[in-house]
């Protein structure tokens, strides 16, 4: 365990060093924030580094194996319905619980002038993520080409962006980024990788990826559709 943390500490310091160096340079040359404010930045940066070490170690030790076990177990049950339901449940639950989604839903409700309650919108976004995650896993099971699915999703996103009222567009794309919490991203990823590792004729390298990206198209479409209906 200490060896694992020490290895992570090295990685974290290497990944944070360029950011911290650049911030220090900006502080010296341009920003010149008061000493107290810069001290607050430094204290926060220590928290960030420490948190990243524990987070990455914990994801390796707990979160990724959980996702992999679930992803490898689901196809053994021989039921596509179970896979689809699990993906939907996981996508829905992790999104509906995300606090960012509630903040976003409140903004969208204001833009839609109360056409939909913030709570209903939260469920709509979560259902968009769940449905897309389920569809993306079903694609792995059925062997449907990912390219076609992605092309259809982005063509729909483009068409709706041009048609929806302008106020909803930035909001919709922001909603797309909520699917990818630091914890839900590795779980969905591990689920897809586990699934494609045990299915015959699939390989994790070519079939395991794409679920996260596809899932983030769900809420974009959901919010743009809301805009069309409200506008």
């Amino acid at each position: 365990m200490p060896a694992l943390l020490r290895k992570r500490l090295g990685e974290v310091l290497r990944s944070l060093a360029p950011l911290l160096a650049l911030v220090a340079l900006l502080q010296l040359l341009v920003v010149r924030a008061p000493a107290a404010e810069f001290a607050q930045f430094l204290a926060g940066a220590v928290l960030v580094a420490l948190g990243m070490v524990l987070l990455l170690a914990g994801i390796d030790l707990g979160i990724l194996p959980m996702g992999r076990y679930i992803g490898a177990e689901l196809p053994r049950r021989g039921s596509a319905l179970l896979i689809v339901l699990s993906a939907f449940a996981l996508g829905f639950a992790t999104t509906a619980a995300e606090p960012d989604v509630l903040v976003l839903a409140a903004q969208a409700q204001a833009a839609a002038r109360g056409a939909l309650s913030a709570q209903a919108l939260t469920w709509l976004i979560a259902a968009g993520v769940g449905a897309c995650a389920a569809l993306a896993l079903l694609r792995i099971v059925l062997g449907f080409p990912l390219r076609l699915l992605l092309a259809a999703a982005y063509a729909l996103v483009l068409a709706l962006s041009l048609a929806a009222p302008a106020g909803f567009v930035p909001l919709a794309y922001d909603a797309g980024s909520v699917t990818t919490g630091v914890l839900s991203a590795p779980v969905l990823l591990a689920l897809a990788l586990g699934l494609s590792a045990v299915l015959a004729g699939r390989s994790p390298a070519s079939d395991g990826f794409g679920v996260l990206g596809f899932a983030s198209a769900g809420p974009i479409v959901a919010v743009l559709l809301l805009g069309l209906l409200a506008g």
Partner: protein
Amino acid sequence: MSAAAVLAEALATARSVLVAVLPLVAFFLAMQALFLRLPAKEVWRMLAGAALAALGLFLFLLGVEVAFLPFGRLAGQALGALPGAWPLIAAGVALGFVTARAEPAVAILAGEVENASGGSIRAPLVLAAVCAGVALLVGVGMARIVFAIPLLYVLVPGYVAVLVLLWLSKGEFAAIAVDAGGVATGPLANTFLLALALGASSAAGGRDPLTHGLGLVALIALAPMLSLMALGALLRRKELRKEA
């Protein structure tokens, strides 16, 4: 920042971490009870890992709020007040690169890509492509603030390019690229770069920071899709040429 403010922030962060972790753990425990039936030792090890991840996420998010949110705003205001657009755009490019490099979910994705591909796609290559893409589009995002360019003028050509590159790129790169688009918009980018953009657009003056500062997240999500798919397309051309 006062002690009371830090405490309130800590409570809100703790709550958001709990609601992020609990559904995952509950789902896993349900699977364990119904189907998995793993040995208790293995289950405890994973639960300990999840607890460690939750504690780490709490410290990380709290640190981001305390350090990067206020400093991002100050930096955005200071850069936006400088004469000319170039200091802000250059700082956006540089900060976009180093922020993507520091984003934990990007590192996790790069590691999983290297694992799943058996080492044939190296993690540093994925990292470099993601960082380069984010750097470029944060630069574009800053230019958008200075010159008041509507978001759709950037997003529509961007997604059209994604649709084209999807067919030109190697299949696994296209899939990795869309996932990278998801993870690049992590907590660090969402607070630090967004605060930078909001600060810059308030310094630029006369513009509604809500419509001009927002939308940067959409550009950051688009960035790695473009850069990784472009890399995939280059690699495919090279392969085709070798075969010919």
